[in-house]
């Protein structure tokens, strides 16, 4: 079972070669053995029972779903009825989900098993998974380093073989960056591709759920299952969902691969650049056409993000008041004190920082200069991407230009930490799909990720290229 892929495991369970119960036990055992990684904050107590139900279905030759018996871990900001969901925050430490998120429900309907919930940065605010009520999640390849964030637990769990696949959420890179740091495959789909119903909101116009897996094909399968319109989320796209696996063709003939001149300027001279260039040369040798493109103002996507995301977060987190749910301060004497004292106790430092920043950019006198300007800039960046995609099918970016950093080494200056999202934030600002795949190794033989971006709803084109690189590039080194 070691390092089995999702597709292989489902096939083995369906054919009776492997029992779903044995798969669940295998991962539970791995979670215990690697508890020092702090990736999984709870294993759900009914996972074995659910696996037994799948094994019974196999035995009785009943129809089986596309994820039959696959143990999948969800980020701790996704609701699963009757189970805890805490967003790695003291504020929600006792919160029990009253209903199930659509994406989780779709996994269950395809006979997948929700094994447990993964560590994360509190309310998904952070890029290292160090800002968690449960303590930091560690990197699967080097436990002195960060797992990345905010979906650090989800990425680490896949890399360390604690589950066969997982779900994360990505607001500014929170699926792709930890995937890059842990050497796994992570997708931030087109905005609206997945329902956000039952996902605790951070910045609603940027948040997307994304699969994290051990291969591109696994990722394509899992996205095919969870994606699609949902009547509970009117931002979910009504367009029919493709079977992404069928779009993996095994060749990249005539694919127009873009490289962005502004990004090249940023990474020129770094060790990453030579590896990046090598991939471009390889793709050219395999039948792709390389196209230079330009994305105006791309370097401003990050400051734009740090206006829009806190503005939305401050509104979304307004609902945490110590009354309807969340932990209430016991000393509060009146309603104002309940709000204030409970929020002061409940939120961690980074969350408070972003609430304050959000209220600043939304306050009168600054609203036009910051929020409105950022919204206009966002639309300009999106238009610039649209123009670029009239010349190419995909664009290659770094996910991060370096390997995972040492735990605690970036805590002095918040901007230093924010800059890690430099290459991932543009896709969220533009609302387009972007995928990170491991393609090379950096310092200490740690994984490095390559990012593939495409136009709206072109996840299939991304998967085809990613699968081609995954299967062919290693041999060419």
């Amino acid at each position, binding site marked *: 079972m070691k390092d089995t892929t999702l597709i292989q495991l489902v096939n083995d369970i369906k054919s009776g070669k492997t029992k779903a119960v044995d798969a669940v036990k295998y991962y539970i055992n791995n979670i215990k053995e690697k508890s020092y990684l702090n990736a999984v904050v709870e294993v759900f107590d009914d996972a074995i029972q659910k696996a037994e139900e799948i094994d019974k279905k196999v035995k009785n030759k009943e129809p089986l779903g596309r994820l039959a018996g696959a143990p999948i871990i969800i980020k701790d900001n996704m609701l699963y009825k009757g189970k805890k969901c805490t967003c790695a925050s003291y504020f929600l430490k006792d919160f029990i989900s009253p209903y199930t998120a659509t994406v989780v429900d779709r996994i269950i309907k395809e006979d997948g098993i929700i094994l447990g919930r993964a560590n994360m940065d509190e309310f998904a605010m952070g890029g290292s998974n160090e800002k968690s009520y449960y303590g930091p999640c560690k990197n699967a390849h080097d436990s002195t380093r960060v797992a990345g964030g905010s979906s650090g637990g989800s990425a680490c769990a896949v890399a360390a073989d604690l589950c066969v696949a997982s779900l994360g959420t990505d607001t500014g890179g929170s699926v792709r960056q930890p995937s890059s740091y842990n050497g796994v495959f992570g997708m931030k789909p087109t905005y609206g591709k997945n329902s956000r119903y039952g996902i605790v909101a951070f910045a609603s116009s940027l948040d997307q759920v994304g699969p994290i897996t051990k291969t591109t094909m696994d990722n394509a399968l899992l996205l095919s299952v969870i994606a699609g319109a949902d009547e509970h989320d009117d931002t979910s796209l*009504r367009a029919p969902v493709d079977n992404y696996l069928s779009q993996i063709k095994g060749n990249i003939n005539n694919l127009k691969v873009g490289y962005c001149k502004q990004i090249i300027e940023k990474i020129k001279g770094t060790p990453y650049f030579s590896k990046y260039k090598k991939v471009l040369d390889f793709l050219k040798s395999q039948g792709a056409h390389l196209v230079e493109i330009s994305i105006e103002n791309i370097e401003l996507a990050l*400051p734009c993000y740090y206006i829009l995301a806190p503005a939305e977060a401050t509104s979304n987190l307004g609902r945490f008041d110590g*009354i*309807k749910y969340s932990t209430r301060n016991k000393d509060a004497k009146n309603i104002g004190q*309940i709000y204030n004292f409970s929020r002061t106790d409940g939120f961690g430092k980074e969350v408070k920082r972003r609430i304050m920043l959000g209220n600043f950019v939304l306050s009168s006198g600054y609203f036009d200069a910051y929020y409105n300007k950022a919204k206009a*800039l966002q639309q*300009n960046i999106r238009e610039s991407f649209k123009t670029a995609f009239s010349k190419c099918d995909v664009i290659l970016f770094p996910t991060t230009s370096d390997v995972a950093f040492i735990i605690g080494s970036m805590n002095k200056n918040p901007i230093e930490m924010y800059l890690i999202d430099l290459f991932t934030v543009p896709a969220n600002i533009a609302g387009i799909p972007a995928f990170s795949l491991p393609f090379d190794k950096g310092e200490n033989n740690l994984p490095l990720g390559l990012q593939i971006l495409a136009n709206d709803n072109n996840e299939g084109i991304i998967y085809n290229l990613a699968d081609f690189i995954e299967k062919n590039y290693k041999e060419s080194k």
Partner: protein
Amino acid sequence: MSFSKKEIKHLADLSALTFSDEEIASFADEFEVITQFVSQIQNAKIDTTIKYEKTKTIEQLRDDVAKPGFSNEEVLLNAPEKAKGAFKVPIVVE
């Protein structure tokens, strides 16, 4: 831009958060750095005639059909304090 303690305290009030004097001083320093960073967008040469796309259209709304919602127990499941099927709060109007 620089921030006075008074300005930070005002933002804290808007945020329904309380900070110690030390934390307020630390926020004032951090905010100076963060606003300097985000203020880069002020110099952006952008086309302001491009309007935000409206992602929602009317056909994306679901049919207006009444369906059962959450039960009283489900709604109160996570209430820190509850009484008689309602959220319990201190007296608001005297």
